[in-house]
């Protein structure tokens, strides 16, 4: 029980305290298959508790880490925003990398400051190294970021 409570607590922190209340059912975004399952229809928001903690503060990228749940990657590359983005968009990113194109992949390039003229090469490299980045179904966000960095560094 204590463990569960601790896990819930960590999850709440990781998802930015703003999400704490009703959002506990949300998967915090580490690894594949992490999808928001709350069925918000936009009109009715069960996560509106988020709003009561202040509009911008906690939900704004980069102000606090969104991925505390996952250990910080060894090679801390770029901003916390990169990590949060990878953690929360793992499936789209994996899909885009396997196809060598797509909006999530472009966003990754932006967050990693890849210059415009090198993005084609960047995508191709990630695509051909897909299996080295997404090594297993249980791969975590920190592993993915580290693998991406390793792959892009090797010629």
């Amino acid at each position, binding site marked *: 029980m204590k463990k569960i409570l601790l896990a819930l607590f960590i999850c709440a922190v990781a998802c930015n305290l703003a999400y704490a209340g009703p959002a506990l059912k949300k998967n915090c975004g580490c690894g594949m298959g992490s999808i928001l399952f709350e069925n918000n229809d936009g*009109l*009715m928001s069960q996560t509106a508790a988020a709003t*009561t903690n202040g*509009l*911008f503060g906690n939900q*704004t*990228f980069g102000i606090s880490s969104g991925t505390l749940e996952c250990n910080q990657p060894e090679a801390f590359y770029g901003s916390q925003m990169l990590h949060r983005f990878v953690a929360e968009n793992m499936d789209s990113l994996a899909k885009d990398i396997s196809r*060598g*194109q797509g909006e999530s992949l472009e966003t990754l390039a932006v967050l990693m400051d890849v210059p415009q003229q090198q993005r084609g090469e960047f995508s191709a490299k990630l695509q051909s190294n*897909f299996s080295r980045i997404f090594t297993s179904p249980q791969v975590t966000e920190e592993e993915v970021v580290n693998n991406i960095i390793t792959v892009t560094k090797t010629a």
Partner: protein
Amino acid sequence: MLRHAISLFLFSAALVCAGRAAGAEASYVNHLINKVGQQKLHQNRYWHILLHYKKTLFGYESVIDDPRFFLAPDGKHDPQAELAATLRAFFSPPDDPANPPVCRFIARYAWLKEQLGFDEAQLALASCRKFEKTMEVIRPKAATIIFPAAYMNNPASMFGHTFINIETENRSKLLSHAVNYSAFTTETNGLVFALKGLSGFYKGYFSILPYYEKVQEYSDINQRDIWEYRLNFTQAEVKKMVMHIWELQEIYAYYYFFDENCSYHILFLLEAGRPGLHLTDQPNQWVIPIDTVRALQDDGVIESADYRPSRATKIRYLAAALDRQEQKTALSLARGAIAPERVLQRDISLRDKAGILDLATEYLQYTYVKKEIPKDRYTALFLGLLQARSTLGKGAGPQHEPPAPADPEKGHESNRVALGFGVKKGTWFEELRLRPAYHSLTDNDAGYERGAQIQFMNTVLRYYSAKNDVQLKSLDVIDIISLSPRDLLFKPFSWKVKTGFRQQLMPDGRDHLIYQLHTGGGYAYSNKQLGLYYGMVEGAVNFSGSFKKNYALGIGAAIGLKKNITDRWTLLLEARSLYYGLGDEHTTHELTMKHNIALSAKRSLSWEVSRTRTFGIYQTDVVCMWNLYF
């Protein structure tokens, strides 16, 4: 440059408490309040925008309900008192030095400072560090109105939702900040939610999320296409808007589904950015989200429209490029019945291999989101498919993005009035129809879901000049139809619900007004030649004093077809039989044919023929209508 601008725009906010004598402050404030009176600033439109004041019969009232939004006790109703109280609060030592009124109401401050030329040395002002930091992170650059189109199989969602994206400099769209206004509730009973939502029981708050979360929510989970309307706001206008959003933190306004809803409240944000816009001044009526977009289009605010297809749309698009055998292969892949390598080994083009794998991947994700498979199975299959896909290299991929359909903003408008004439049993009549909202199956469906109908308070009046008799032909309080075609990949259910008053032929050979609740459910299919066709099992219950037993309860079936003969010409055919076994026993059979030709986005011509048999009596009804959408 930007950072510089931001610091400037923070009004050199890092002024520290001047520690002046209270008397001096008070006299300066009184001086300012006098100035306000002379300039009549409390009557200024921008003040009314910032406080969300609306004119009422006796004065003003703000649509914001949270008392913390007002500094004067009667600030909700008194713009002048609120302005004076605001100035007093600005020039008094703050109760909470970490969050002084100057920082909390930063848009008010900026505007009043500009209007009155504050002597900031008089200000008991701490720095607005939190705001400053937030602005540095957000770096607001551009704004977009986001309009998620209707759910598949949920016509009520045509009312949709709208929110604003604040885009950041040099960043991908996915990283922009989605500003929402939504009702806060933990209610999970849809009916209770609807009833309470209609009558303003819920508090609505603004919230901000990364846009990619909204994309996941709408495109990936709810299968709604998204339209992104980029506004031609300047960076300065976007900043003004963000300052006002800042003021609305943790502030509630009661949520009313039809009028004071998400679309309505974000209009104030737009006006705060560009006060020249008059969006909230429209006469009180239902705010239908797409009408908001239309109003913006009319004001020349929309620069461009981008389409973001939902996952279901992508699946249909990918499937359409493949033959049935290949679609089945993709389905087997998504179910894990065959290994992805088998596709790689096939003697087909790279493009087809990619197409099959992509379809399988999207479909797998779709079934996962629908909770049809557990997570570990999903991730294993998902990774296997992607590994195979990555070996195909670049350039193998088909074009993933489905082409944009007609922009919903270009579709017909929501109100409809129709005038026409017809003949029944040899008697001519004139007919008037009024429909405040929203769309029927026969209305031109450019910009709408093909199989969706949702009408409220559709009222039909007939005048028989020979008898000098006005008749309420029908009044459909609610009339919803959802036809979603089934295919290899999607197996949705189609349904309808309709309730309201209508005339029914009784055994005495005359029409009588009855109240009817009529529902049905079944399957729909689609085919290029036939169009959309469907069959439903239906049930109806009728109430009327004209029945011997005051009611009749029946079941039956209907088949129908909707075909767009051309882009402008829609045909609807329907046959229905209902057997009423309880109450007044009788049967009804009806055959209807409706044609509608759109003359423009605003006008159409329609004619309808129906042949019915009720209580054994045949009747034919022919009517020709001219429709105006506005």
